[in-house]
C-alpha cells in the first residue's frame, strides 16, 4: 500500500518524488523542473505529454503557467513521519524507509542493503584497479631490466673506448719515439762526418805546422852554420830556403785562425710548428657521444674517432748550413703523411731508386710540392734536395727555418730512412684501369635511420643485376640500391626472429641472387631471396662446428657454398646452401693458415678464398679446401702494408682489392699478392673515407666501398 501510494507520488520522467507537480490538460502530472521544462518545445510553444502524447499549448507565462496538481501537493505535504513512522529517513538510493546509515566515504545516507551494494561496488572497483595494475606492472620491471642492461652496456662500451684511446695514444707515442730515434741517428751521422772532416783538417794543419817547423829548423841550422865543419851551405840552397820560407810566410800570413774552421757546419734541431703540434696533441682525438640505443648493441671498437684522426705533424729537421761546398745538403722534410694525400695520388711518376751522389750539380726541375707525397708512410718520407749554392758569404748564424729557401728538388729516397719506396711498377692493361681510380663516380647515404640513410654501413655486395646491397648494420636492416644510389628495397628490423637482425655485418649475393647475411650479434647466418623474403637461417653462438661467434664477412662460390668469417673463433667455416656444415679452417695465431680476427672474405672465380686477417695486418689466400696458398702484407702504411685490413673483393682476373681500414685507403694487388696501386685517404670529402668496411666490385670494375663513419657508400 505504501509503495503504491509512493508510486503515485513519483514523476514518470525523473522517477523521483514530485517536485512542484504541474498538471497538464490531459490530466497527467509532471515536475515543473526539469521534467516538464525539458519536454517543452519553445519554438512552437507546445509540449507533448510523455504519457499520452497529447500536444498542448504552453501558456503565455511558460511552463509555470500550467496549474499545480494540488492533490498531489497535499499528499506530498503529509509529514513523512506521520504516514511512515519509525522517524528515519529514506535511503537515497532505493527510497525505502529503513534504517539509515551514512556511507563512510561519501555523504550519501543509505539503507543497509544499498550501503552494502555501494561498498561492494567499491570493492569491485578496487578489484578492477588491482588487476589493471598487475597488468601494467611488468612494464616497469622491463624498464628496470632495460636500465640494468644499458648500464652494463655503457660500462662495456666505456671500457672499449678507453682501450681504443690507450692503443691509439700508444701508437702515437711509438711513432714519436721512432722519430726521435731517427733524428738522433741522423745527428750521430752528421757528427761523424763533421768530426771526420775536422780531423782531416786538423791533421793537415798539424802536418803543415810540422813541415813549417822543420823548415824553420833546417833553415836556421843552415844559416847558422858558419865555419865549423859541415858542408858549406850553397847559395842555391840558401835561395831555395829563402823561397820556401817566403812561400810559407805568405801562406801563414794569409791564413787566419778562423778560416780553418770556415766551412764547418753545425747541426741544429728545431721543432717546427711546435705550437700547432702541441695544440694538436692537446686536442688529439675526439669523443663523441650519441644517443645510446641499447638494443642496437652498438659497442664498436671503432666508435671513438681518435683512431682515425690524422697523426700529428712530425717535426721538421732543418740543418743550417754555413757554407756549401758542393756536397748536397741533406734537407730533410718529414712531412706528415696521409693528411693531404690527394686522391689522384696514383698519378705520380715511378720513384727512382738511387743514392745520393755528389756529382749532380744540376737540379732536375721536377716541381713537387713538399707536402704531397705518394704512397706515404706515416713515418717518413725523405727527400734529398739540392740547395742552390749558397756561397761562402753566408753568415754563420743558424738559419731559423727552411721555408725561405727556394729550391727545386727531386725525390731521391734515402735507403736508410725510407722503407719501401722504390718499386718500379710494371704496367698492364687492367693495372692502368685501376691506376686511374681515385676519383669517385657516385656516393650516397648519410647518417640516419630513414630510408636511404645508414647508421654504420658495413658489408656491401653487388647483385647479378648490379644492384648494390648494403648491410646497414646499426639500423639492423639490408638496403638495396641501383648503381646510381636509388633505393630499391629495404628489409629487416631489430630482433632475433626470422628476418630480424642485430648488428648484421657481412652480406653477399649468390649466383641465384639470394642474399646471404651474417647476423653478427645473433651469431647466425640468414638467407633471403632476391626480394628480401626470408628463406632460412643457421648458426648459433658457440665454438663447435657449425657454431659461430660474431660472424662478420660472408662470401659464396659458384657452387653455392657459403664461407663465413667466424671472427671471434678466428676461423673460416664453410656451409652448404641449406645450412649444413661442410668444413672449417684456421685457428687463433699468426702463422700460415692462422687468423686473428678475420673480418671479410671473398671467393675468386678459381675458387681461391681470400681472407682479410685483420689483427695480423695481412691477407691470406687459401684454396677451396682451406689449404693455405699464400699471404701478403704486414703492419705498416707503405705499399703492400696494412693496418687492420677489412673488406676484400676479387675481380674476374683475380685482382684483389683490400679495404685497408687503418690506413683509410684501398689497395689493389695482383693475383700473386704483389702491390698494384692504392687510393683513398682519410676524410669526409669525395674519395675520402673514415672507417673502411666492406668492399665489392661491380661488373664494370667499379669499386663499391662502405664508408662506415661517414655513413655512406662511395663508388670509385
Amino acid at each position, binding site marked *: 500500500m505504501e509503495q503504491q501510494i509512493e508510486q503515485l507520488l513519483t514523476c514518470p*520522467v*525523473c522517477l*523521483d518524488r514530485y517536485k512542484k507537480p504541474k498538471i497538464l490538460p490531459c490530466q497527467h502530472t509532471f515536475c515543473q523542473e526539469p521534467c516538464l521544462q525539458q519536454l517543452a518545445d519553445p519554438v512552437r510553444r507546445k509540449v507533448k505529454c*510523455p504519457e499520452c*502524447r497529447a500536444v498542448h499549448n504552453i501558456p503565455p507565462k511558460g511552463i509555470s503557467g500550467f496549474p499545480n496538481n494540488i492533490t498531489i501537493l497535499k499528499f506530498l505535504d503529509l509529514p513523512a513521519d506521520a504516514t511512515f513512522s519509525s522517524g528515519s529517513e529514506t535511503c537515497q538510493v532505493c527510497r525505502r524507509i529503513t534504517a539509515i546509515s551514512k556511507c563512510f566515504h561519501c555523504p550519501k545516507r543509505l539503507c543497509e542493503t544499498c550501503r552494502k551494494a555501494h561498498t561492494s561496488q567499491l570493492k569491485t572497483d578496487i578489484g578492477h584497479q588491482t588487476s589493471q595494475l598487475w597488468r601494467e606492472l611488468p612494464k616497469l620491471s622491463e624498464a628496470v631490466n632495460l636500465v640494468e642492461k644499458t648500464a652494463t652496456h655503457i660500462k662495456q662500451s666505456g671500457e672499449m673506448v678507453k682501450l681504443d684511446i690507450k692503443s691509439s695514444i700508444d701508437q702515437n707515442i711509438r711513432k714519436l719515439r721512432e722519430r726521435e730515434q731517427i733524428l738522433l741517428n741522423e745527428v750521430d751521422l752528421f757528427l761523424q762526418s763533421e768530426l771526420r772532416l775536422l780531423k782531416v783538417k786538423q791533421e793537415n794543419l798539424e802536418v803543415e805546422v810540422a813541415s813549417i817547423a822543420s823548415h824553420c829548423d833546417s833553415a836556421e841550422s843552415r844559416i847558422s852554420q858558419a865555419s865549423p865543419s859541415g858542408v858549406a851551405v850553397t847559395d842555391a840552397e840558401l835561395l831555395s830556403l829563402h823561397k820556401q820560407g817566403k812561400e810559407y810566410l805568405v801562406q801563414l800570413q794569409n791564413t787566419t785562425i778562423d778560416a780553418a774552421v770556415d766551412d764547418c757546419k753545425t747541426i741544429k734541431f728545431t721543432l717546427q710548428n711546435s705550437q700547432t703540434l702541441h695544440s694538436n696533441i692537446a686536442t688529439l682525438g675526439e669523443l663523441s657521444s650519441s644517443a645510446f640505443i641499447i638494443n642496437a648493441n652498438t659497442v664498436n671498437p671503432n666508435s671513438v674517432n681518435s683512431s682515425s684522426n690524422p697523426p700529428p705533424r712530425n717535426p721538421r729537421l732543418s740543418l743550417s748550413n754555413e757554407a756549401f761546398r758542393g756536397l748536397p745538403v741533406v734537407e730533410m722534410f718529414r712531412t706528415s703523411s696521409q693528411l693531404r694525400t690527394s686522391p689522384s695520388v696514383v698519378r705520380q711518376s715511378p720513384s727512382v731508386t738511387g743514392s745520393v751522389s755528389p756529382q749532380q750539380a744540376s737540379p732536375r726541375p721536377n716541381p713537387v710540392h713538399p707536402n704531397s707525397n705518394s704512397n706515404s708512410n706515416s713515418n717518413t718520407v725523405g727527400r734529398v734536395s739540392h740547395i742552390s749554392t749558397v756561397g761562402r758569404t753566408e753568415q754563420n748564424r743558424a738559419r731559423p727555418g727552411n721555408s725561405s729557401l727556394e729550391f727545386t728538388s727531386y725525390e731521391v729516397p734515402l735507403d736508410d730512412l725510407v722503407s719501401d719506396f722504390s718499386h718500379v711498377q710494371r704496367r698492364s692493361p687492367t693495372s692502368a684501369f685501376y691506376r686511374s681510380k681515385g676519383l669517385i663516380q657516385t656516393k650516397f647515404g648519410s647518417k640516419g635511420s630513414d630510408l636511404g640513410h645508414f647508421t654504420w654501413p658495413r658489408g656491401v655486395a653487388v647483385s647479378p643485376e648490379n644492384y648494390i646491397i648494403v648491410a646497414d648494420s646499426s639500423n639492423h636492416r639490408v638496403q638495396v640500391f641501383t648503381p646510381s644510389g636509388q633505393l630499391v628495397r629495404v628489409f629487416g628490423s631489430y630482433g632475433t626472429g626470422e628476418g630480424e637482425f642485430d648488428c648484421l655485418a657481412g652480406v653477399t649475393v649468390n649466383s641465384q641472387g639470394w642474399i646471404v647475411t651474417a647476423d653478427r650479434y645473433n651469431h647466425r647466418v640468414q638467407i633471403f631471396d632476391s626480394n628480401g623474403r626470408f628463406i632460412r637461417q643457421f648458426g648459433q653462438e658457440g665454438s663447435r662446428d657449425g657454431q659461430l661467434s660474431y660472424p662478420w664477412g660472408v662470401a659464396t662460390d659458384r657452387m653455392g657454398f657459403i664461407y663465413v668469417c667466424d671472427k671471434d673463433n678466428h676461423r673460416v667455416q664453410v656451409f652448404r646452401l641449406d645450412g649444413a656444415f661442410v668444413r672449417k679452417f684456421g685457428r687463433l695465431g699468426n702463422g700460415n693458415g692462422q687468423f686473428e680476427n678475420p673480418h671479410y672474405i671473398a671467393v675468386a672465380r678459381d675458387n681461391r678464398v681470400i681472407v682479410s686477417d685483420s689483427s695480423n695486418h695481412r691477407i691470406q689466400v687459401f684454396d677451396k679446401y682451406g689449404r693455405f696458398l699464400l699471404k701478403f702484407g704486414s703492419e705498416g702504411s707503405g705499399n703492400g702494408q696494412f693496418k687492420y685490413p677489412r673488406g676484400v673483393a676479387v675481380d674476374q682476373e683475380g685482382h684483389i682489392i683490400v679495404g685497408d681500414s687503418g690506413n683509410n685507403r684501398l689497395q689493389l694487388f695482383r693475383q700473386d699478392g704483389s702491390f698494384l696501386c692504392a687510393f683513398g685517404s682519410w676524410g669526409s670529402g669525395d674519395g675520402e673515407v673514415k672507417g673502411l668496411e666492406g668492399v665489392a666490385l661491380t661488373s664494370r670494375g667499379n669499386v663499391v666501398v662502405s664508408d662506415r663513419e661517414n655513413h655512406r657508400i662511395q663508388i670509385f
Partner: protein
Amino acid sequence: MMSSLPRRIIKETQRLTNEPVPGINAVPDEQNARYFHVDVMGPSESPFEGGTFKLELFLPEDYPMAPPKVRFMTKIYHPNIDKLGRICLDILKDKWSPALQIRTVLLSIQALLSAPNPDDPLANDVAEQWKVNESHAIETAKAWTRLYAMKS
C-alpha cells in the same frame, strides 16, 4: 564517475536488479553504468522460442529525453531486425517518450519478437520472405534460433 549518473538511471537500474522483467535480464556493464548487457528469451509460441538473444542497450547523455540505443548482438531472422542487429521499433525513434523506461523498451522488443511486422521492414529480403512464404520464413527463423541463439 562521469558527471554523476542521473537519479533516474540509478533508480531504474536498481529496479531492474530488484524486480527483473520476466524473460528479460538486463545487467549494467561494470565499467560503464549507461551500458547494459541484455538477454531476452525468445517468447513462447514464436519461432524464436527457446533461444536466448543478446542485446546491448545504451543510455545516451540526454536520456530520458532521448531514447536508449538498443541493438541485437545475436543473429536473428526477423523482418524488423537487420543483419547488423538494428531494430525497427517506433518507440526507439519518433515515438519515444520520457515516460517510457528501459523495462518498457525491452518488453516492447520482446513483443516485437512475438509479432513480427513485415509491412514496416528494416530487413527487406527477410520481410519479403515473410510475406511471400511465411511458413518457410518461420522455419528459417527457427533454424537461425537453433543455430545462433542456443548455446550448444
